């Protein structure tokens, strides 16, 4: 077990690394970010398998997609955003200089372990932060391995030693101590309510995000077949471990029968009242979620509950009457089981969605399938969530993979969800800008800052290996780790060409996932 006291030496190293990295220039950062993303991308399949094997949650092929999206995908998405160079606003006579947070403490969950590690590490690298990953104990092996793959690639590309570290033996007291440590500059907490509240109570700046309990409303104007297909796909995606997966399906009565048929055609199994009772008993013994079901496939869950379904069943639809807290099926399930209720009209549909969020998931997300903009607007205004995805599966929709929201594994739940972050976590959340403001008097001139940059590329390993000072003038010895200095690569035309080709390939590959 890593002790709380031991974590201090780890965080101290991170501070040294952060201090060094905060002076890197754009080219050096780009080389490091690209190298880490490539390494993560190359290992996407391996870690998808490892994550499923270790956590027994989710679907390998879907985790591959997420791992790719959270490595090269995320880098591609922010490719044109310069988070390093000073910004000049000549008209307002203001120069803005980016200032990284420093040490990011990234708390990652068991449900999306590797993708979240990738995501938080890539965001940290883009913004010149050091990051310490504290994985969920149930996903510690794959999370630590993933962090190390990125760390090695980053350091080999010139990043400071220790820029990415990971806790091998996480525990709650350890993470609490690290969250409260003065060496931690910002906590990015993804996980249960407990860890998120602890992050906010730590005394350090925190970006905590809470759980979801996503209502999806299908009104009479919706394209029912398309809605059914999107909902089933979304629920089947990684067996619903994304916190954005739909939890409660609310359908206008006039199209309910049609909806059931469409769901069935798309691979869902609609349970009857007795079957729903059996499932409820298995999934929520004494009213509490049986965590064994999290991320399992529908056929396994049905079998355990004593239901007979075909092995091809992708999603279980469990009907219930009232969206109230004592109805277990109205709570978050993190599995391919979708509660379903019907309503007489859109007004009642909106109230049912509000009721679902009253149970849990405030500030998180909701979905609506409708062609009526005023219903959509009423829904979005009434339901206390910060993202409403429309005519798209919510798993990937609110996470920005199938919408134009920022692609993210960490969704801010805002003030209503007791978080300081209201948007999808993005690189700029991990940095500040120093505002250099000139006298606004027209007589005071601001000189031209173009090309002025306080940042540098490293000329060798950071830190330098400690050779004795009477040998300082001789050529550097080979580094202890076999590491050699990597020159900045941007000036080499062959590398530029290679990168352009790589960008093209990646863009093609990710066209389905990430739209610009």
């Amino acid at each position, binding site marked *: 077990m890593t*002790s709380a*006291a*031991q974590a201090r*030496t*780890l965080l*101290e*190293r991170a*501070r*040294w*690394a952060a*201090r*060094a990295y905060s002076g890197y220039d754009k080219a050096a950062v780009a080389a490091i970010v690209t190298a880490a993303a490539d390494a993560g991308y190359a290992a996407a399949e391996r870690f998808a398998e490892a994550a499923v094997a270790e956590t027994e949650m989710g679907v390998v092929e879907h985790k591959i997609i997420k791992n790719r999206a959270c490595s090269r995908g995320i880098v591609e998405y922010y490719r044109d955003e310069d988070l390093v160079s000073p910004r000049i606003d000549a008209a307002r006579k203001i120069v803005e200089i980016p200032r990284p947070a420093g040490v990011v403490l990234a708390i990652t969950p068991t449900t999306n372990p590797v993708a979240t590690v990738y995501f938080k590490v890539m965001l940290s690298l883009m913004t010149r932060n050091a990051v310490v990953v504290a994985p969920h104990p149930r996903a510690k092996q794959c999370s630590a391995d993933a962090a190390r793959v990125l760390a090695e690639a980053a350091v080999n590309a010139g990043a400071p*030693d*220790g820029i990415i*570290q990971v806790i091998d033996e996480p525990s709650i007291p350890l993470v609490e101590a690290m969250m409260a440590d003065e*060496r931690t500059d910002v906590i990015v907490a993804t996980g249960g309510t407990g860890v998120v509240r602890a992050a906010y109570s730590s005394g350090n700046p925190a970006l905590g995000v809470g759980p979801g309990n996503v209502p999806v409303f299908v009104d009479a104007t919706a394209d029912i077949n398309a809605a059914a297909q999107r909902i089933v796909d979304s629920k089947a995606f990684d067996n619903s471990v994304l916190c954005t997966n739909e939890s409660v399906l609310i359908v206008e009565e006039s199209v309910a029968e049609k909806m059931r048929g469409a769901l069935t055609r798309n691979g869902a199994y609609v349970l009857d009242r007795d079957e729903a009772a059996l499932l409820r008993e298995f999934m929520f013994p004494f009213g509490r979620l049986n965590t064994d079901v999290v991320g399992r496939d529908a056929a396994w869950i049905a079998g355990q509950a004593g239901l007979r379904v075909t092995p091809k069943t992708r999603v279980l639809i469990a009907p219930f009457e009232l969206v109230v807290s004592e109805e277990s099926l109205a709570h978050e399930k993190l599995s391919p089981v979708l509660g379903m209720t019907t309503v007489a009209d859109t007004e009642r549909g909106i109230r049912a969605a509000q009721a679902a969020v009253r149970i849990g998931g405030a500030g998180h997300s909701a979905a609506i399938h409708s062609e009526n903009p005023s219903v959509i607007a009423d829904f979005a205004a009434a339901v206390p969530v910060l993202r409403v995805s429309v005519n798209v599966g919510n798993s990937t929709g609110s996470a920005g993979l199938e919408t134009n929201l920022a692609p993210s594994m960490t969704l801010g739940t805002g003030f209503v969800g007791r978080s300081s972050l209201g948007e999808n976590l993005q690189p700029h959340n991990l940095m500040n800008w120093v505002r250099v403001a000139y006298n606004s008097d027209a007589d005071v001139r601001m000189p031209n800052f173009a090309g002025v940059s306080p940042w540098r590329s490293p000329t060798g390993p*950071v*830190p*330098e*290996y*400690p*050779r*004795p*000072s*009477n*040998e*300082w003038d001789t050529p550097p010895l080979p580094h*202890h780790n076999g590491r050699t200095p990597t020159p900045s690569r941007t000036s080499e035309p062959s590398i530029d060409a290679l990168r352009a080709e790589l960008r093209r390939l990646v863009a093609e590959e990710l066209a389905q996932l990430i739209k610009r």
Partner: protein
Amino acid sequence: MYDYGTFSFDSKAEVLEQSKTFWNPGKTQFWIDEGVDLVIDRRQDYYLWDMSGRRLIDLHLNGGTYSLGHRNPEVVQAVNEATEYFDIGNHHFPSVARTALAQRLVESAPASITKVAYGTGGGEAIDIAIKSARHATKRRKIVSIVKAYHGHTGLAVASGDDRFAKIFLSDRPDEFVQVPFGDIDAMEKVLSAGDVAAVLMETIPATYGFPLPPPGYLEATKALTEKYGSLYIADEVQTGLMRTGEMWAITKHGIEPDIIVTGKGLSGGMYPITAAMLSDRAGQWLNEDGFAHISTFGGAELGCVAGIKTLEISGRPEVRSTVHYIADLFAHGLRRIQSDNPDWFVGIRQNGVVIGLEFDHPEGAKFVMRELYENGVWAIFSTLDPRVLQFKPGILLSHEICEDVLDRLDVAVRSAEKAARERRPS
């Protein structure tokens, strides 16, 4: 009123008076005369507080004793917990704690090291090393360097500079030979007689002001010991335990010594313990006669626990990395300050956080020491070369403290030059 639980004093002045009366008048008066009126009261991390309440950043660390900081919380916790179960132990018997630390020390060392013998102080561990070498080679002569310092017990003090030996009529020139540091010809000359048991050498001689071994010197010396059948004893009391960015500085030279001596920082400054780590050849007496060297307190079990924790902390990859960062920052910062004062600050001797600063005055380091003391930093001159200030950062320092120290040093170096040029040292 200063209440320390089991004792108390009314004032700092009273302590100084009683110190002269009951303890050590010479030493007490020396520091008063030097302008360093320090009586250490509270201590935490890399800070010391004088009884007056004044805070000092500790860049002396008692030669690395406090390399992990004062009262390192992890070491304190380990020792506190150990007192619930252990005491010093009984040195006649096998012991869980001694065995556990010995195993870890052997694993931390080059492959040549296979056994550990414990002492309570650095001198005792050096004595064990010398005795082991004599037993292994059946020779008596020990070669060390001019201005060497290895401690104050019988054999250790005889191997060092006369400064500490002659006063007690403890010099033994017939058995202890000294050669100039860095002079490989002189070394070969004395070794070639074939009657030398061992060469005893600090990897970087601390009390002599950390002169760095010329490139190849230690390697050539090791080769000569092999050629002439002598052993190589690496005194790593000040250079070991990650202070050069590797656990044992001698490994940076690719040398597998016959004996490594460690002390000072080995127990995080919380409990006295030292060790001589021995090769098969040097440790042969442990098979022949395990009672040949006895020490009631050597390898005290509480010390072993402190040692295990200290070794574990010092060996962490993140700590090694941090030492490299600290060394890098000081390397750049010191060169900057030196370039502003090239005629005064004439030399930087650095390997990791083992650092000596050389000034152009026979007692230059005393001036800088005093000015640093005035500026809230405690670093000490080198006893056997007072031109050189021993400048010993801890291995867990934050970058803020390092930058703070450099700012203070920048000022102290300038004002020390002024003081040195204007008057003679006190």
